[in-house]
Every structure is written in C-alpha cells, then in structure tokens.
C-alpha cells in the first residue's frame, strides 16, 4: 500500500515536471514564431523593393503602364502635405485637451474624456474616411487634399490628447509651486513653465501619432483619392504613398508591383524612423526631467 502511494505520487510529480519543461519550449516557440513573421515580412520587402529604389523613384512622376521607370515623387510629397494638414487640425485640439485634462479637469470629466479618446482610437480608420467624405467631399463636390488631411487630423486627436496629458502630468509639482509662489497666475505657469518643461514628451507623442497616421490608407481612399500628377491646390485630389502602394499592388502589371515594393520600403522606413526618433526623444526627455 505504502509503495503504491509513493509510486503514484512519483508519477504525478514526474508528469508535472515534464509538463513544466514542455511549456517553456511551447511558449518560446510562440515568441520565435512572431519574430519569424516579422523577419519574413522585412526580408521580402527589402529583397523585392531594393532593385526599384533609385534616385528616379524619389524625383519622377509615375509613368503610364508599359513604360519603364518612373517614381513616386508626387506621392511622397503628397504624404507630407497630408500629414502637415493633419497636424494643423490634430495637434492644437489634442494638445489643448491634454493640458486641460492634466491641469484643470475634475476626476469625472477627465475620466470621461480619456475613455472617449481610447474608444475613438479603436474606431476603424475607414469610418473616419466616411465621416470626412460626408462633411468635406460632398459639400466641396470633389475629392481633395483638405478632406484627406481632415480625416487624418481627426484620427490624431485622441492619441495626442492621451500622450500630451501623460507628459504634462509628469512635470514635477515643485516647478508649478515655484511659479505660483512668485505670484504668477496659474495660466502663465502653465504656458511658460509646465508646457515648455513637457515639450520633449509632447513632441514624442506627436511623432508617434504621425508614424501611425502616415501609413493609413483606408481613410484616404475616398478623401485624398490619389492623383497621378502634381496637384496644384489643396482642393484637388492628392497622391499619397500608402494609396499608391495599394493601387500598384492590386494592379496586374509586374512593373507596378516592383514600384509598390519600393514604395513600401520608403513608407516603412519613414514609419520606423519617426518611431525611433520618438524613442530617442522620450529617453532624453525623461533623463532631463529627472535632472540627470
């Protein structure tokens, strides 16, 4: 009897130990699988795209089907134009809301706005495209750079609100108290002391948001619409890099496919570079805030 209990205990123990060991491998396999996918995507991107990536790609307009060469100069410029327009809309509102939430809002209101911002972040980007279509494109009776910038700008608002609130809140309370003790009104303390102190962080938030918005295609499909030439005013359709990659990718022409890969490299480098730059900023900013 004694032996029986002992051996069954021994069996369970061994089974538990094996199970424990096996899970280490299973779990690390999950992580490796994810890395493999990333690696696979990046290598394909560079191998397929690098051959079409030449100076011409950055300076020329797209060529018609059948003609070799051509580039995406207008699309690259278009993406920057759209981002610029988006910043004009998203940054003031997001920053203002972030500062208010950090400095003035009572708990309930702040919670409500934060919650709404997070919910807004989760709304599919194509819905913003439809919204921009109904309020911009229909009244203007034309696809336009303005409506594309409007769609991207709205998408930026919730993210910038959350990040700038976070960084404004991180400014040490002593800085504010020092200002207030000198008899400076609270709003001057905010404008002249708190915001400048948080500026590095705020910039990080803006850049992370830009990196996210730069690759958005869905909200531009029926707002910016795309354009094979240079546009001459903001009320005209405008080309954008992600849109061009999309159009070329689903086209039946090999030449265009190669251009799509090249466009994708430029797009991904842009996104990674802005992200990396933002990381650099946030590290420097937190060092600076903690006084090291």
């Amino acid at each position, binding site marked *: 009897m004694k032996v029986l209990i002992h051996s069954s205990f021994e069996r369970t123990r061994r089974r538990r130990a094996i199970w424990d060991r096996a*899970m280490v491998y299973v779990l690390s396999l999950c992580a490796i699988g994810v890395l493999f996918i990333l690696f696979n995507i990046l290598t394909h991107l560079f191998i397929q795209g690098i051959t079409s990536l030449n100076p011409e790609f950055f300076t020329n307009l797209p060529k018609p089907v059948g003609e070799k060469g051509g580039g995406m100069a207008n699309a690259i410029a278009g993406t920057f134009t759209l981002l610029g327009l988006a910043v004009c809309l998203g940054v003031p509102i997001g920053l203002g809301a972030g500062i*208010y939430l950090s*400095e003035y809002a009572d708990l309930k209101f702040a919670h409500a706005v934060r919650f709404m911002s997070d919910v807004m972040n989760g*709304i599919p980007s194509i*819905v913003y*495209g439809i919204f921009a279509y109904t309020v911009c494109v229909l009244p203007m009776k034309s696809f336009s750079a303005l409506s594309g910038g409007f769609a991207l700008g709205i998408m930026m608002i919730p993210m910038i609100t959350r990040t700038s609130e976070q960084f404004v809140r991180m400014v040490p309370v002593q800085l504010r108290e020092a200002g207030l003790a000198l008899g400076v009104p609270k709003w001057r303390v905010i404008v002249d002391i708190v915001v400048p102190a948080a500026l590095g962080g705020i910039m990080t938030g803006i850049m992370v948001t830009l990196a996210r918005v730069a690759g958005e*295609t869905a909200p531009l499909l029926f707002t910016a619409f795309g354009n094979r030439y240079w546009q001459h005013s903001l009320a005209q359709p405008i080309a954008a890099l992600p849109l061009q990659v999309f159009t070329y990718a689903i086209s039946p022409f090999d030449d265009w496919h190669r251009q799509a890969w090249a466009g994708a490299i430029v797009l991904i480098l842009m996104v990674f570079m802005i992200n990396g730059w933002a990381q650099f900023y946030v590290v420097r900013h937190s060092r600076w805030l903690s006084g090291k």
Partner: protein
Amino acid sequence: MNRQDTSDIVFRRILAVFPISILILVAGIFFQLAYSSLPSLKHFGLAFFYNTTWDPVAEHFGALPFIFGTCLTSLVALLLAVPIGIGAAIYLAEYAPPKVSKFISILVDLLAAIPSVIYGLWGIFVLVPYMRNYVQPFLGKYLGFLPFFQGPNYGVGFLAASIILAIIIIPFIISVSREVILAVPSVYKESAYALGTTRWEAIFDIVLSYGRAGILGAVVLALGRAIGETMAVTMIIGNNVVITPSLFSPGYTLASVLANEFAEADSNMYLSALIEIGLVLFLVSIVVNILARFLIWSVTKGPGQVIK
C-alpha cells in the same frame, strides 16, 4: 489680484473647449453617419441585416454576407492569434531574461507599427501563393471531409484574410497581455511556489486566473482591430458576395466592401447603404472597445501610460 483671477478663468474656459470638442466629435460622427444613411435605414429597415442580396444595379441591398465575412474572418483570426499571442506574452513576462524580453518587445512594437497596406502587399505576393501551393492543398487533403476545407483553391479568400488578420492583431495581444501579466502582484506567485507548485502551474493557475479579465480585455481589443481592419483584408479576401462555410472561398467583409465600392457608388441609395455599413462598423467598434477598456482597467487599475 482680481485681474489675475479673471485671466485664469478666461484661459480655463478657452482650454475647456478642446476636451469638450472631443466628446462633441464622437457624437457628431454618429449623427452624421446616421443622418447620411437615413434613406437606406428607412427603405430597408431591419431587412438590411438579414438580406443576402447585394445588387447595386437593382438597388437592392442586404449586408448579411459582409456581416458573415467579418464575423468569420475575425473569429478564425482570434482562434489563431490568441494562443500564440498569449503564449508569447507569458514567455516575455515570465521566462525570458530581462534583456531578451526588452529586445523582443521592441521587435513586437515594430511589427505593430507596420502599416496595414504593407501587410496587404506581403499578403498578395508571399502569403497567397504559399496558401495556394502548400497550405490549402494540405488542408484539403487531410481535413477535406470538413465543410470548412472544401471547394476550389484560389489562394485568396477567407482563410488567407484570417491569417493576415491574425498576424496584425498578435502584437496587440502580446503587448496588452504582457502588461496585464506584469501587473499581477508577485506575492501571489510566490505563495504558489511556497506551496510547491511548478513554475508553469504558478503561471497558469495563479497569474493567468488573476489577470483573466485583463487578458480577456486584450482579446476583445484585438477583436475590435480585426473587425475594423480594412486594407490588408481588402487586398487578399477576393471580393465575392457569398455566405459559405468554406474557408477557401473568396469573400467580403464590412470594411473591405467599403474600401472597394465606396468611391464608385453612383446613386444616393447605394451611397447611403454603404454609409449604413460604416455606421454598423462604428457602433460595433465602440461597443467592443468600451467592453475591452473596462476589462483591462479592472486589472491594471486605471488607464495606464500610453508611451513608456
């Protein structure tokens, strides 16, 4: 003194416009979409949601095939992504040495930063041929008795779209559930060790059950992403209005029909039917996100930091 007080109040009032405008914006998007889809709402009523014909020429619109496509692809994507994502998150939070964990987390963030149009490009030229030549023939051969793996093999279709969706949502599942797992107080795990559990038992029985709500939140959040994901899906789902159990079949989702047909909608009713689809996406994603936030906040105790 008095003058300073007024200036403070004025500044506060001006600044208050911005957060209030966020609330107004969300309401505004809802009303604008509802107003623009009014013709379709009135004309089709509830039949819009259970009608299976989508005929722009006859102006007869039923969204069921798209609702079906969105549900099917999101569900299959979750089935694929949840075990892998949570597994990787556990590895990063509990097993990996801190340096390795940090490095892999950065790579996962990179994966999350890739624009969906690039996933779509990779999907068209790498994933779809692979599905057509290897995965789908294999599934058809060994699991072909199931209705899910029957029918002609094009490569594009529900299965390819589900896989790309899974790849897109895995980084979200990893980063949110990693945070949730790290938020579990280590006292609980240590008590479990003291009772003689193995490492895996402590993680599975204690950490995961403590963080259950938060991990569920991560999954729901990922579901929201999957429902709204547009470009990558549009590029490889095959654009076919159909309801079928076959995962090999080309199909459509709510978001991809918008991406494909919105710009060419030529009649008012067509446009308003498409906007109604947008309204459905808007409402569904709001419900899903509210649910997810509550679940995640219940574990991490508040909204947390956006940038670390």
